[in-house]
């Protein structure tokens, strides 16, 4: 096959999820024998694009060309037949099966009555593993392998399936230095064979080593595609973050009061949180930034008693407290609005009234009996205050739009009269109008003296809302920026920068 031919071309792809534009007019191409890096902040549209190329979702507009042929019925199965394989951060092997069986599952003729030729299965597994330089026994149980080993098995499977297009999502995130070099070797070898590789990584340094071209995505749009040669890290970051803030945020006169929440050397091995120090004052909004997987949600869960800390101290209004369960946290005046509201923020089968009062159930009842008048009063108060659009209080929350569901989740916690509010991605997947309303509400709450700790993957939101910004990396806070000094570049540098210098350490387990 000739090189420089187009393997995959996305032409003006657009995709909208529940009113939120994930991709806008995205054009992208991958040539044979190139490593094409895809970079962008959290939520820039990388995974949406990958989902479309692998056939997991269909675009609303635009066409995917595979080897210059338009394909309009791309499904995961069809993508596989066309030689597209993806390897994700979390390997997806069948952990109870052997390596050889895992390799066979994707590759062998799948017919129920086919007799298994164990010898052929084993020898092919052996060959494929050799090709990726893995020293793994084909008989080993996949679940017993380390993460990098599992990853190599996945690459071997992709090679075995004659993949022409290999998509790698953060493949080095859990690899040691030596393993990373090993992987580079495999990638270079594949490249020589004419395989095209889409390479997603937050480690900008490694891109200069391995990538031929880079495409920068921001807010669902392609900002630039260019040759990797001669592009600097600073320039990449500048392209990733862009210049202006896309939204208008409520203006607030910040007058932080006393310290409401103080974390001292907080550690939780189970959650991967280590040595966190942070202060949040009443009336202050502290933004918690960091890449996906940097431990932001895990920190929130530790504070809220879902994964209680092993060591360190949580102080509330200066007093050390023991928080071993969410009930303890609520008693301390904490409230936590979790991310992924559909799963954990609301109970979608229950009506609005029951959802809004679930966290104050014990206060709402007299001798165990629910005071329905009080329930209606509280729920309708928040329905009005948060402008929740719903036919009635008895509507089950599952039927509401994302923004209104999030408002119900918020009202549940506001009903507890918390002094400290922890918000985890409060506006994720919500349309612009509801977003602005929630922003205004958070601003009001802080103005009334609530201490707010807000996790967000959107840098403009973090910059627009926060008085101070704490940046997490590898389970700990690596820097705190004041509103005045904070820029998208500085935040991203902190979130990434650590990994740039200490990339080699990433493979080691963090204690």
């Amino acid at each position: 096959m000739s090189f420089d031919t187009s393997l995959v071309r996305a032409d003006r792809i657009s995709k909208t999820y529940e009113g939120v534009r994930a991709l806008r007019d995205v054009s992208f191409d991958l040539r044979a024998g190139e490593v094409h890096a895809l970079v962008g902040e959290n939520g820039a549209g990388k995974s949406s694009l990958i989902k479309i190329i692998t056939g997991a979702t269909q675009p609303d507009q635009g066409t995917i060309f595979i080897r210059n042929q338009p394909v309009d019925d791309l499904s995961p199965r069809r993508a596989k037949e066309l030689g597209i394989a993806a390897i994700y951060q979390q390997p997806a092997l069948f952990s109870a099966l052997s390596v050889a069986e895992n390799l066979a599952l994707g590759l062998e003729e799948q017919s129920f009555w086919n007799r298994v030729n164990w010898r052929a299965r084993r020898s092919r597994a052996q060959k494929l593993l050799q090709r990726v330089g893995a020293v793994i026994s084909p008989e080993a149980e996949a679940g017993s392998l380390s993460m990098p080993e599992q990853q190599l098995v996945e690459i071997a499977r992709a090679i075995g399936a004659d993949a022409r297009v290999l998509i790698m999502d953060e493949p080095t995130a859990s690899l040691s230095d030596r393993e990373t070099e090993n992987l580079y070797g495999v990638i270079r070898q594949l490249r020589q064979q004419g395989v095209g590789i889409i390479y997603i990584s937050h480690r900008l340094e490694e891109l200069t080593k391995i990538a031929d071209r880079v495409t920068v995505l921001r807010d669902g749009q392609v900002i630039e595609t260019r040759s990797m040669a001669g592009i600097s890290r600073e320039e990449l970051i500048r392209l990733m973050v862009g210049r202006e803030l896309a939204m208008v945020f409520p203006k607030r006169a910040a007058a932080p009061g006393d310290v409401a929440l103080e974390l001292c050397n907080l550690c939780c091995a189970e959650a991967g949180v280590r040595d966190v120090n942070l202060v949040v004052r009443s009336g202050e909004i502290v933004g918690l930034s960091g890449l996906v997987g940097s431990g932001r949600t895990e920190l929130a869960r530790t504070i809220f008693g879902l994964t209680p800390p092993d060591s360190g101290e949580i102080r509330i209004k200066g007093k050390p407290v023991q928080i071993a369960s969410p009930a303890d946290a609520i008693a301390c005046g904490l409230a936590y609005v979790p991310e992924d509201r559909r799963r954990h923020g609301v109970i979608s089968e229950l009506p609005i009234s029951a959802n809004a009062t679930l966290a104050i159930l014990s206060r709402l009842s007299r001798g165990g009996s629910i005071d329905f008048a009080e329930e209606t009063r509280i729920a309708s108060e928040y329905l009005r205050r948060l402008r929740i659009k719903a036919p009635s209080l008895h509507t089950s929350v599952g039927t509401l739009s994302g923004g209104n569901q999030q408002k119900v989740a918020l009202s549940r916690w506001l009903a507890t009269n918390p002094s400290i509010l922890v918000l985890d991605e409060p506006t994720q997947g919500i349309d612009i109008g509801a977003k602005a309303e929630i922003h205004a509400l958070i601003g009001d709450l802080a103005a009334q003296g609530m201490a707010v700790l807000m996790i967000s993957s959107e840098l403009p939101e973090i910059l627009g809302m926060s008085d101070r910004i704490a940046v997490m990396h590898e389970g700990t806070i690596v820097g705190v920026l004041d509103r005045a000094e904070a820029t998208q570049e500085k935040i991203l540098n902190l979130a990434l920068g650590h990994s740039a210098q200490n990339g080699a350490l990433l493979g080691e387990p963090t204690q």
Partner: protein
Amino acid sequence: MNFRQMLTRSKRELPCVIAFGVLLLALALRAPDFFDPQNLRDLLVNTAPTLIVALGMTIVILTGEIDISVGSLFAVCSVALGWLAKAGVPILVLPLAALVIGAVLGAGNGWLVARVGMPSIIVTLATYIAWRNGLLWITQGAWVQNLPAGFQWFGLSQRGGETLIVLSAVILLIAFAIALRHLSGGRAVYAVGCDREASRLAGIDARRVVFGAFVLMGALTSLAALLNDVRFSAIPSNLGTGLELKAIAAVVVGGVSITGGSGSVIGALFGTALLGSIGTALVFAGINPFWEKAIQGAIILTAVFADAAVSRLQKHVHLDFSRAGSA
């Protein structure tokens, strides 16, 4: 609350209520003898203990768990209460003793499920076997006989005893219907059954709720055992075989979601009534009663199938709403 709201709220119970209505209608046309007061009375007295067990099963299934040990528990409690009566425990203390014995046995299941974290189907399968065989070993299969004179019908006339049995079941039914709706504990049961993690995040102690459900299940089963015991002059040691299936089937047919979180005790009532009257209905309709189990099986399958179909339908409706309501 207008009629439409009432229909929407009770949409899970409705199919079973309709089915029961159709059955009664068919009997009225084909076999009006079914409505003979004596027959209805027998039917009520026979079904009352099953209904009480079904109430407990409703709570357990609402929390997303299951208890298949109730048949064995029923047998153990029956015999234990018989022994207590023979040992001279006054008849007025027996109901209390029943509650305590049942609660303790149920707490065993609850502890293993909620605290140790074992799957309820395995835990209760194990206790189902253990209690049944333990009882067989201890009694050597012997019945409890020579019960004291005041035991049968609680020392009342047969009529009085029967009335008391049915009345107990009715009172418990009403109490549980109110409790599930009006007590915060009832609300917690639904919340835990819908989404355990979300409930935990809202500060609800999900493990305590599940533990409590098993304790209640045990207490109710034991009470049902007592109400059943007093109907006879001797207590066999193999009582309650198949009771767990009867109770689970009644609850599921009554519209309680087997995955937890939705349904009501009113549904369980109609489920028990429907499945419990089929056998007698067949006799009166002149159909070979060998069909009873087959028809019950068909009803259960239909109920589960309808539940799956409805929830699939609802998912689509949700999507449509979310589009219409997004703002």
